[in-house]
């Protein structure tokens, strides 16, 4: 963590909430490395406003991540990234975990950025439609449309029961 003392509060906040924020970023991006890039970019923006943020850096970071995920964070990417295994993860079955990640990340790649953000907000973060609309900066009806279409696309790719662990053809 930075040693000049200016960001002590932020370092403590990230110690507590960094993992949760990165997990959301990995789903939004989607992908491990892209997720780290997304969170890092959000952190950079937070640093610029750090002296003005009062009390809720998490809300600020999440809003930046969602907005960036929707408005073109991935435009520079040419191909979907496959989420690789973390180097130090204590995963019982690496192969099946890799399969699950491949299916989920490939499926999320099928969605538009807005659909993906709406699906992550609604089903991962369990935000209400109104909260999702506020996070994405769009109307509630747009959230409904994006989440419904996103779920439809995922069901079409995965199957109606959303069994991500099965071999899908």
């Amino acid at each position, binding site marked *: *963590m*930075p040693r000049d003392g200016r*960001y002590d509060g932020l*370092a403590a906040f*990230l110690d507590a909430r960094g*993992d949760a924020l*990165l*997990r959301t970023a*990995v*789903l939004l991006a989607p992908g491990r490395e892209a*997720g*780290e890039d997304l969170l*890092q970019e959000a952190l950079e923006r937070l*640093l610029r406003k750090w002296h003005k943020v009062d009390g809720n850096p998490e809300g600020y970071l999440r809003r930046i991540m969602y*907005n960036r995920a*929707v*408005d073109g964070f991935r435009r520079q990417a040419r*191909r*979907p*990234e*496959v*989420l*690789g*295994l*973390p*180097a130090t*993860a204590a*995963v019982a*079955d690496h*192969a*099946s975990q*890799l399969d*699950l*990640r*491949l299916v*989920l*990340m*490939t499926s999320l790649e099928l969605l538009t950025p*807005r659909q993906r953000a709406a699906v*992550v907000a*609604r*089903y991962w*973060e*369990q*935000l*209400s439609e109104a*909260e999702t609309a506020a996070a994405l900066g*769009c*109307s509630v*009806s747009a959230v409904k*449309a994006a989440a419904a279409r996103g*779920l*439809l696309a*995922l*069901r*079409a790719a995965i199957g109606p029961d*959303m069994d991500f662990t099965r*071999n*899908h*053809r």
Partner: protein
Amino acid sequence: MTRYHDDPGDGDAGTALRTAMSACVSDIRMPASLLDDAVSRDRRRKTRIRLASAAGVIVAVAAVATVIAAMPGRPAGHVASPRTGQSAAGRPVQSAAYVLDQAATAQVNSYRMISVEHGDGLTYTDVATQQQRIVSALRASSGQPYFQITTTIDGGVYTGTDIEYQHHVWSTFTASSLDAGTQVTLSSFLPLQGNPNPHVAFQQALKAGTITVVGHQSLNGLDTILIRVKAASKPGAKIQWPPSWIWIDASTYLVVQTKHFIPDLPSAPGGKISWRAIVNQVTWLPPTPQNLAQLTVTPPAGFTKIPYSELVQKYLGPMS
């Protein structure tokens, strides 16, 4: 923000999705260096801004010099033209840069035409009028398409209409087409499409080695140029995605066929992943009234209009 502990409204599918997401990211930990890296990058950004401010004066002087040089009566600078020549066989020899420049122009021009993708069903897309119609390959017992989906964007309103022919139901929904203040647009899902400036994007991809112009190839008697689009590889990635292949008409430079790959996962953990090729033929239609009519569909008489969420959950979702 408030967390809702009950399911957000899509029952088992939403729960299954959340479970999969949880299993997928539960072991992810934030690297300790992430904040340090962000602070370092922020410092570099501030340094760049300071340097750019200082350099601004120099740039302004150079710009004035350029304007003076370009004034009437002065010789214009040389503009390089695409390299073309003549091969021994009489066919024009075209550089990759020239081919991709022509393809970029064709792509921009194609926004005024209707693309028809023939693959797993049919997809008609008209970028100019912002209309799209998808016709499923799957058939209902009546022989009609199992479903048709139309989407339009007009006057800031996004309208979707889905018709399901097996159970004679349909639904529609509208939403704002503004997404975080940015206008959402309909575009084709063809590879290489959607670049705001395809000329620049293609040339950058060529320099980066992402795009390769393979050469001429006859496709069902049509002279085409085959282009290879390499998948980006990340250091340490476990899986290398195969490249995509695109055939463009050698005379119009429009896309006529695409081939990309999706993974077929192993049935048992640890098995090898195989890749399944998806080939789509693409045709182009002029925007005549007859062709534009292909972009819309009306629910047949006797079909029942139901809520959109019901259509998705009961009919279109389980259909897959």
